[in-house]
């Protein structure tokens, strides 16, 4: 291929089951870090890849708490700044505040989760090394790809042998974006 350094070694599989088994086998063989690309979510694949990042969940939680607190503070400030006495109820009417708090909790959680997802995926991003592999387009249709990412300690020959043992349809070298 080219002189460019390797981004990943890609194994192409025909089903979710195969890619799941391959991910488990590669992890056992000590090859990694791994990533996978499938046309639909494959149950258990995230665990098999050793994916344990919970940035999105944490961001959703923090966003929710901040949203609810901001909703409460906003209503409190509005009511204290412009007091309207209605039906003898207190100005800081907690039951009435709950609806807006809940709405802003949902908004905060959703914005937090989406924002964290964008940052974690480095979006918006117009190009990705995987697009260099001509077969990669099939990953959104009927092919399942397991990628051994070339990081520190990556051994091309060892990863290639381990991948070949799993009998993939093809092994593809993906170079870094030039």
């Amino acid at each position: 291929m080219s002189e460019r350094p390797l981004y990943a070694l890609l194994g192409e599989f025909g089903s979710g089951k195969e890619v799941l088994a391959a991910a488990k086998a590669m992890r056992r063989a000590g090859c990694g870090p791994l990533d996978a690309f499938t046309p639909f979510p494959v149950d258990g694949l995230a665990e098999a890849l050793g994916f344990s990042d919970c940035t999105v969940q944490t961001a959703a939680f923090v966003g929710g708490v901040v949203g609810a607190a901001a909703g409460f503070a906003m209503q409190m400030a509005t009511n204290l700044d412009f007091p309207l006495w209605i039906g003898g109820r207190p100005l800081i009417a907690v039951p009435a505040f709950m609806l807006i708090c809940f709405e802003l909790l949902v908004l905060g959680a959703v914005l937090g989760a989406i924002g964290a997802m964008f940052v974690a995926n480095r979006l918006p991003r117009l190009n990705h090394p995987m697009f260099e592999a001509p077969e990669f387009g099939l990953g959104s249709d009927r092919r399942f790809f397991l990628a051994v990412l070339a990081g520190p300690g990556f051994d091309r020959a060892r990863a290639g042998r381990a991948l070949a043992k799993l009998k993939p349809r093809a092994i593809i070298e993906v170079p870094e974006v030039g």
Partner: protein
Amino acid sequence: MPRPMPRPRMAALVGGGVLAAAALVACVLVPGALAGWLAAVTAVCALPAGALVLSLMMRLIPGVWGEELRLSTEAMTLLTPWAALAFVPVVAGLGAIYPWMRDAKLSALQQLTLTPLCFAAVSAVRFAALWALGRRMRARRRTRATAAAGLVALPLLAGLAAFEWLLSLDPGFASSAFGLQFLERELTIAFAALLLLRLSLGRPPARPSVLGGLMLTLLLLWAYFEFLPFFINWSSDEPDGAAWYLARARGGWGVLLWIWAALSGVPLLALLFAKARNSVAALRWIAGTVIVGKLCELAWVTLPGFGIPAIAVDVAATGGLALVCAALLPSLLYRRIERRMPKEANR
């Protein structure tokens, strides 16, 4: 072959029976105490009624939860005749519980519907429907049609029962969400009891997170159904609605309100974490906590205005009947398993 009941369960059955019988005797001796029996027996009726609704839903929405819980739900629907039997004292002693049997001011519709005959008819039709639908589901006869028809009929019957059994304790109070709260309470009690039964016997479930997720859904429904009617009553501030909530916010009832809110609210927050949804031990704790919370909630809805004897009877009867159910359910489950086992396996 039916298995003999182990000694601890036999002891629970006898002890629970004696405790419940003592509570019933107290109801005869102390006026007003029968309301405690009503609260306890409403919780017991929730087991077969909630389990049946769940089993009908399992038929129409198949999935892991059905595979894990089907036989347990069917075993629980076998409690229907016992629940109906336990409800007889309530029908026999309406005068000791309901203000509409005395001199309460009733609307025209209430004068038609709040009569001993109507009360008995609604209760009888509901228990008959629970038994008939449960029997068809257990026999696996035309289960799809049964499930569809049952899921239309049972919420309506639950709404009527909620109106006759609990809402009519205060004829001045009206709430369109009361039936939904009643149904949600029944489903949650039954589901938590099913979880306890399922997690205590046999192999652990393959995917506990699915069951934990369902528990979370029921608790989210609970939070919605309990908060919104309160909020509507709080906003409109009508005297009858306010009186119902005020009676339940004063003194000990106000404390009990926070207790049952915490007993359901803390499990709800815990279930937000995947670790809690995935852990069998955590789910067992959560199911137990939720059941205790629901029993407190039921007492809070039913008993204000009835005094200490009714509360004592509720505690004793609930304890007794819970022991009886805990002793009976494993045997009923084994009976279902043996009934469904292939013939060759029995030899």
